[in-house]
């Protein structure tokens, strides 16, 4: 079974630039999550989708972050404009039954200079 795919794996940008991350969840998984993991910390949920709809985006900085999940499959997370404090690993996860049984992708390491 293929796992959660993410791209790119690494991205370096300058502050105020824009960046986008892509995630392809495990086939058939209705729930998709985006997390931000700052070095030395645990993952923090940014947004949760159930099929096409947003379930929880309470911790998403909506002035600069946006996410969409078209057709209930792939998802993109965008940051515009980026700040230095956005440097982190952005993890995508998907689940079939409940938020606990989440399968994570390898993440995208973002460095903002």
């Amino acid at each position, binding site marked *: 079974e293929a796992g*959660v795919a993410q791209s790119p794996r690494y991205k370096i940008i300058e502050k105020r630039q824009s960046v986008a991350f892509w995630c392809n969840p495990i086939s058939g998984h209705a*729930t998709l999550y985006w997390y931000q993991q700052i070095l*030395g*910390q*645990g*993952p*923090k*949920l940014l947004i*949760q989708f*159930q099929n096409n709809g947003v*379930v*929880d985006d309470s911790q998403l900085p909506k002035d600069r972050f946006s996410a969409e999940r078209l057709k209930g499959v792939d998802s993109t997370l965008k940051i515009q404009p980026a700040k230095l404090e956005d440097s982190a690993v952005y*993890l995508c*996860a998907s689940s079939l039954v*409940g*938020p*606990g*049984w*989440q*399968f*994570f*992708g*390898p*993440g995208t390491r973002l460095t903002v200079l």
Partner: protein
Amino acid sequence: EDQVTQSPEALRLQEGESSSLNCSYTVSGLRGLFWYRQDPGKGPEFLFTLYSAGEEKEKERLKATLTKKESFLHITAPKPEDSATYLCAVQAPSDGNTGKLIFGQGTTLQVKP
């Protein structure tokens, strides 16, 4: 406020030296507690789910236990391949079937041969 605290932040063991990792939590109405393993450059990998106080789960050299306020991950006779960051997460209640995970900061375990 729902919170998860893990201790110690880092742990160094000799091969074969058993020890325990702690996860303390404060959440109203725990729906589940989850342990994940994260290797460098990879996403977290699911290990265990615990739902009620007194519950125990085992997998190879790992054993997870749960009380009303904390969980322990016991590592018996660890091997160098057990070196990783271990993350604890709790599932918070929500209005529906979804419930976001709140992660601790992790314990980084290093096992020396």
